[in-house]
């Protein structure tokens, strides 16, 4: 579905007008993440994360579209332990955003838009015997706002995102897969204890960056990114899954190649 959408974006860009630019982005970063999954542990885990991603942007004078695939990984220790990594986690997300320029004055531009993304998160604490893995899926609708200042080949920008509603898939009371070592039963019962539910206000993100624009249309830049996601569920594990919260700070490097 991701590549079908990319094809549509390329096709649309090629027939619209000559002011349409398509950029392929290779992005990477590292930073610090903090999370708690109350179904696994009451402790707050903090650790190092890496954030590689690939993106395709279609830019038109008044519209911009973006498809982004990210794979994040991290190693964490819990905050009461002085040393060592006790947990590992990762996220895979696929996002599609569309923004429209809503205001322009001089070198300032403001954009507003929406995005949808699916984020799969998995956490493992190998320190714990058996009950040590929790996976979650967030299918999110996001509201986006972006501000840009264009200054002679440089672009300073900031973007805010908010998730008003999301569809979540979270493990239930027992984190069941961890207990079942018979593979056929594992497959049969993997999702038995999972909850599918809607939640409001499950995430917020912010990003501040500066980009250098080259004469050939390529760009490179730096940005600081912070996001927070939460499952916002009541922590009894039965009527709703145990709560999951994760925040991530990252310093990102962006390389965008003008491919059209």
């Amino acid at each position, binding site marked *: 579905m991701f590549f079908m959408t990319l094809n549509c974006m390329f096709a649309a860009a090629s027939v619209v007008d000559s002011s349409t630019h398509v950029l392929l982005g290779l992005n990477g970063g590292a930073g610090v993440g*903090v999370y*708690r999954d*109350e179904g*696994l*542990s*009451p*402790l*707050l885990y903090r650790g190092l994360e890496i954030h590689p991603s690939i993106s395709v942007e279609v830019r038109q004078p008044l519209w911009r579209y973006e498809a982004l695939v990210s794979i994040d990984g991290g190693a964490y220790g*819990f905050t*009461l*332990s002085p040393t060592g990594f006790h947990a590992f986690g990762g996220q895979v997300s696929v996002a599609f955003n569309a923004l429209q320029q809503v205001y322009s004055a001089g070198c300032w531009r403001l954009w507003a838009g929406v995005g949808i993304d699916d984020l799969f998160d998995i956490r493992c604490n190998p*320190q*714990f*015997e*058996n*009950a*040590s893995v929790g996976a979650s899926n967030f299918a999110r609708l996001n509201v986006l706002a972006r501000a840009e200042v264009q200054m002679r080949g440089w672009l300073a920008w*900031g973007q*805010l995102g908010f998730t008003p509603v999301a569809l979540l898939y979270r493990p*239930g*009371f*027992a984190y*069941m897969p*961890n*207990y*079942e*070592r*018979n593979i056929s*039963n594992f497959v049969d*019962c993997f999702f*038995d*204890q999972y909850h599918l539910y809607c939640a409001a206000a499950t995430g*917020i993100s*912010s990003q*501040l960056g500066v980009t250098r624009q080259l004469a050939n249309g390529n760009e490179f830049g730096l940005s*600081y990114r*912070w996001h*927070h996601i*939460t499952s916002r569920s009541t922590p*009894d*594990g*039965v009527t709703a899954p145990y*709560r999951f*919260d994760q*925040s991530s*700070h990252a310093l990102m490097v962006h390389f965008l190649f003008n491919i059209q």
Partner: protein
Amino acid sequence: MLFATSCEKAFIPDSGSARATDVFDYLWQQIDQRYSMFDVKNVDWQQVYDTLRPQVRNGMKSDSLFALCATMLNTLHDGHVNLYSAWDVSRSDSVYNRFYTDDGMDVDVLVLNYLGGNYHSTGGVAHNALCDGKVIYMRYGSFGSGVNITERHLRHIVATYPDAEGMILDIRGNGGGLTTNIVNLLSIMPSHGQLIYNSQIKAGPDHDDFTPLVPTYAPNNTGDVYNKPVLVLTDRGSFSAASTFAIATFAYDNIRLMGDTTGGGLGLPAEMALPNGWICRFSSTRTLALDGRNYENGVPPDILLKFDRENAFLHHRDNIIDSACSIILSGSLNNSPKQTF
């Protein structure tokens, strides 16, 4: 935006502090909700809380809090329940004392006079032949991950002793390990896909909140079936996966349990952290035999025979192995009673 970038504490709720009262309350509540064996442990968990909680004071020394928490957990008399701190590990006194006071074998006698110096080792099983090659003796000391037994191993062992009329599988003192080795160890036994046991997982906070039964079936036979008599030797040291293996043998007509009641421990252990970083291990599932019973407190043998320690000391003989050999060679195993359902 700068405000938003450093405010995860405003978004991630505080889960509680590491004060002694919070730690004790959290431990009691988590066990109350997640422990799977209240139905067979005959313990009033609320009364345990009411008795011990008044002794908890914020600011008390960590080792004092540890001792109180350990006292609380030890009321469960479960070998799968432990509390770990940076300097100590708690365990159930009754379970471990029972293992040492009711021990069912003498390892020196077993190694010197039964396995011998020329024993073989295959897939974690030490084996040799007894009674002029007519009885295979297999010593399986652990179901642990470093000694995965396979069907290929078992076929090799059987082929090594072509004149054997039966098999002794000695799992006395076997503290358990991987449940996958249970079906591995049964891989050459007669199978028609029969149920060998059911498992249930805690599905909610009430003591009787469990998932539907999750069945485990006998492994399919992929080659020759071993349908000769098999005596599985057990004692109070046969714990966890060894006890689960014992109930799995209920489904096989050619297998009997002999020796003493096992140590139990049929719940799969899981671990959790406490707000102060301690780790608690607890039984998170329950395993039900073919009769629907929970043998958490021990699996009784088909043939009850206590280990004669005096005989072992004086004559360097293991009365249980000797009796098992006699039963196999007499051909009377099929006439001996087996737990029926």
